[in-house]
């Protein structure tokens, strides 16, 4: 039986990288005493796949991994067993069985994701012009930015990848709530969006850490975004 598991990577462990987070989850699963499945090969490890890696420094209230078990265990029992031995920086929120059917494509959380919602906080030295500048940015037709990747640099328009965006200003902090494309088809990293906002506004505190939290990940069902843990129950 395979399970889709929704978990948090709390703010206190935001600086833990992807591989270390994987290891941390694997050790949590091992401690849980659940009938985990091991990979084959020279160096067997617990089978699990994380839906979408989080960058170092980014935390999450809604991340996912899927993992098989040797036996059919109740969802609530899986959740309880893992939370009992979860490290302080991780909480298991939802556990759903993945009902793979024969002759149908195997569900992979990684492939099911179409979008993710983020909250981005940027600190400003002076926020007096900020509202105006943000309004102007939202009005713009194209959001072009230089994207650096391993294959080189290119100028891209990221606006089509943003499904919704909203902001508020709390004292000198700009709080942006955005839903953006995420996954293997289209993907916008929240860091790039934050960079665009920094480039389009004045007086940002360059020294400050940009606080980014992923809230949820979604599947696109006929244009409607459904949180992954709800989506899994419909298929």
């Amino acid at each position, binding site marked *: 039986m395979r399970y889709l598991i929704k978990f948090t990577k709390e703010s206190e462990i935001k600086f833990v990288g992807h591989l270390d987070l994987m290891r941390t989850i694997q050790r949590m699963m091992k401690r849980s005493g659940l009938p985990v499945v091991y990979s084959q090969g020279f160096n067997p490890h617990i089978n699990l796949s994380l839906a979408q890696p989080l960058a170092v420094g980014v935390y999450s209230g809604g991340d996912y991994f899927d993992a098989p078990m040797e036996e059919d265990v109740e969802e609530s029992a899986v959740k309880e067993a893992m939370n009992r031995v979860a*490290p302080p920086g991780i909480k298991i929120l939802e556990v759903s069985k993945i009902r793979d059917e024969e002759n149908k494509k195997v569900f992979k959380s990684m492939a099911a994701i179409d979008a993710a919602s983020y909250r981005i906080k940027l600190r400003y030295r002076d926020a007096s012009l900020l509202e105006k500048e943000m309004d102007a940015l939202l009005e713009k037709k194209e959001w072009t930015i230089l994207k650096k990747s391993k294959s080189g640099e290119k100028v891209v328009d990221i606006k089509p990848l943003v499904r919704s965006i909203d902001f508020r200003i709390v004292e000198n902090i700009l709080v942006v709530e955005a839903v953006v494309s995420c996954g293997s088809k289209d993907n916008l990293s929240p860091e790039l969006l934050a960079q665009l906002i920094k480039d389009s506004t004045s007086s940002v505190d360059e020294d400050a850490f940009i606080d980014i939290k992923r809230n949820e990940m979604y599947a696109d069902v006929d244009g409607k975004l459904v949180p992954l843990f709800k989506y899994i129950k419909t298929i």
Partner: protein
Amino acid sequence: MNRISDDILSKVEKPARYTGGEYNSYIKDKEKIDIRYAFCFPDVYEVGMSHLGMKILYYTLNEREDTYCERVFTPWPDMEKLMREKGIALYALESKDPLDQFDFLGFTLQYEMSYTNILNMLDMAGLQVRASKRSEDDPIVVCGGPCAYNPEPLYDIADMFVIGEGEEVNNELLDLYKEVKAEGKGKTEYLRRASGVQGVYIPSLYDVEYNEDGTIKRFFPKESGVPEKITKRIIKNFNDIEYPDKFIVPYNEIVHDRVVVETFRGCTRGCRFCQAGMIYRPVREKCTAKIIENTDKLLNSTGYEEVSLSSLSICDHSDIQNLVFSMAERYEKDKIGISLPSLRIDSFSVDLIKQIQKVRKTGLTFAPEAGTQRMRDIINKGVTEENLMESARSAFSSGWSTIKLYFMIGLPYETDEDIAGIADLGQKVVGEYFKVPKEVRKKGLRVNLSTSIFVPKPFTPFQWEPQIRMEEVEAKIRVLRSAIKSKAISYSWHETPVSYLEAVVARGDRRVCDLLVKAFEKGAKFDGWSEYFSFDIWMEALKESGIDGDFYAHRKREYDEILPWDFIDIGVNKAYLIEENEKAKKAVVTPDCRLGCTNCGVDINLKGECFEGAVSN
């Protein structure tokens, strides 16, 4: 509480070093405890967190309801810079409280080249590095660990030293602390009374006089009632000593990221260069059932996928075969790997490792330590060439193709033939490979030779011997390099002056403390890390503190000289060490004491029993 902002953490390498909150770390209510103890490891997080002694003492101290033990590591220089800029004092990982709020700062001394980090950590905590300059209200700085067997170079840094195994004596010291505190008395009174506890050395209660030639004339207690000799502590019933049932599981990878279970303390081999082999006597074992019980608990509570069996020479455990086979069988289903550090050089050990490494054959490492039989006899490394060839043959026929061999250069009474012998030994191992039929052996033979520079250590038969000079080291390395013939052999070596300074500090006296303070003031830190070690800083520090490094590193001592550490009783008689050095000169071996007592004195002096109930395998 310090607030370490994300602004800072996002700018440093591996921020998880500084945030704490790991699984199985202790969180206690500060209001409900009497004693706050900061266990300080003078190196970076990943190194310190791998250290077994810290895991044990963190556990035993926190098992006391009245005590809250927290962890402190040396911030990496990138973090140190930011902390100093922002005025953040060095803090403990659990509460994030600065160190001056603690009752005790306990430093573990694992290697001499970490000492400047201790000074730097005290300074980062806003404390004076010199004990004599700290006030009655400052925390008590206590040092322990293997290097504490010569405490003198840190005599004015630490307030107190613990000599020997810490589990029991720590409890006595904490009980005493509460008692003294309840009487409304302070640090000075506490230290005076602590001097009466076996294994405890309070340097401020002693004084030294020197001869004109710089050697020690007299070492003596300054007041009556303070013991003249400090006898080390040992845990007598090692089998039943409390062992942690949980380890902290760090979020980021550490050097030894696995369960470690202690199988025995001490070693019976009697290698003459080895300090651990002398200071940890007598040998005391844990029985197989106990080791498995400890392992079960730790695997369950950590979720680690590997267990390492710890000791000085693991294959010497009297039930090792049964232990390893039982564990391999027991943990196979849970895919737990078993690792054995410190492999003995014989086919028995190779067979053993074969059993637990069924799939992936990583390289095998052996430490013959010296290249010729004569030299191995001098250092009493009870290994013959035939042992090594058998082991190599066995390894090559079972699928290994990489063998690493560790040696020391600069050993006492060493000649160029002994050095060339290292290359020769490597060549013979290559020969063994080609004797194994082609269809059996694995392709890609590698024989890696590596040498380190010998540093004479206190409480060894070689404690009177000079360290060789850097020019001699270079010459020896040239001899060895030119003697290597086969392309399958690679050679790596250290040529660094670090070992010179290590030799100065290892056998240093109280005057070396000035050198440490001077080096720290000039910016020495992380001296064990080649990217931070600066020989120039140390050379200047030697000059400015008026210390003659050669006096400590290169001088041959007479047997009747008072050595700086002579006031410490490790249980092994000095006469025994002298006798061993004399036998070394004649290349006469002393057999493993499992085969018969060699009368080192430890059983009589410490009223313990060697090697209770166990046999030789």
